[in-house]
């Protein structure tokens, strides 16, 4: 009887320990918080990276479609619900729309994007592989190898204090269609 109670107690204790361990996360001290200068939201807007995505990817029949998982908002394409009555073709792309574009791009592949922000090869990301047709892309070659759009996006994904975003390349790449 005593042996039975003892073994029950041991089993219960082991179970309790196991369940506590299973629920336990890593110690706070073990969490590594990294800060990256790459792909910053500030330069996404001010260096004109958003405009490249808007012009090259955001037409209504492509990533300006609400059925797309990578959804791009723009003045000439899909609009965020707004009180100003802005429709496709009217006004400028709003700050909210730029923020939504940034979130679309950064959260398309969260883990891979984290890796790139940590220094991995940017060409592992769909936002480059698809338009460059390194992977099948229904919308065709939205970006050509070696063109200004590629330079713009790569410089943004690798930006740091010494190597800023190539604003000139972004500005040239945003002239699309050629006017």
């Amino acid at each position: 009887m005593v042996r039975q109670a003892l073994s029950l107690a041991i089993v219960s204790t082991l179970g309790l320990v196991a369940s506590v361990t299973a629920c336990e996360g890593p110690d706070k001290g073990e969490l590594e918080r990294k800060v990256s200068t790459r792909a910053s939201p500030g330069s996404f807007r001010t260096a004109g990276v958003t405009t490249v995505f808007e012009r090259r990817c955001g037409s209504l029949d492509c990533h300006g479609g609400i059925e797309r998982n990578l959804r791009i908002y723009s003045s000439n394409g899909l609009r965020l619900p707004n009180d100003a009555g802005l429709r496709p073709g009217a006004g400028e792309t709003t700050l909210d729309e730029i923020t939504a574009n940034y979130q679309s791009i950064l959260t398309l592949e969260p883990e891979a994007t984290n890796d790139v922000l940590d220094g991995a090869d940017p060409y592992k990301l769909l936002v480059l592989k698809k338009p460059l047709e390194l992977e099948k892309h229904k919308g065709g070659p939205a970006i050509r190898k070696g063109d200004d759009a590629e330079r713009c996006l790569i410089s943004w994904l690798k930006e740091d204090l010494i190597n800023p975003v190539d604003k000139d390349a972004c500005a040239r790449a945003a002239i699309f269609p050629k006017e």
Partner: protein
Amino acid sequence: MTSRSIIALAIAGTSFLSCADPVLSDKVDAQGNETSGVDKGEFHRAGQPCVTCHQEGGPASDAPFTVAGTVFAQPMRQIGVEGAEVRMTDADGTKHTAKTNCVGNFFVKSDEWQPKFPILVEVAKNNVRRSMRSAIGREASCAGCHSTDLEPSDPLSQVGHIYLFATDEPGSPEGATDCKVDPKRPGTP
């Protein structure tokens, strides 16, 4: 009929049905019936998404189009513009120009031009020219994005019909007078 042939027929019937694209079927059904008095042909269904049917697997797959649409005169009425040039340039830089008929329809057959998307488009007649602000990424029917409703049902993701002039076409306010069918889209003001 033997039981073996019945089974074979059943299998053949099942595989035929399973090849039909339900999404495409729904899109085709959504186009509704032909307009009374307008036979199937180059003048029918102005303003509708042509390539829904004129594609592989569609009910008009014997006449597939790579790009097709309709050019109307002005934003508030839907009267076709005849003889407008639709100038297109694809991603490889190849160019093709199509001309609209008297209801404003134009179409590019697969054996005429196989564009590589994205493509850029401008429409012109006489000295009036309008360029599309964005590139066409993949949609072969203009009406895929350009709604025929004067007030698009989803104003955040749809644009109105294609038009060339700010108001009625100079000299042809009611469209081409010698058109075999009415160049006005049914129901337009």
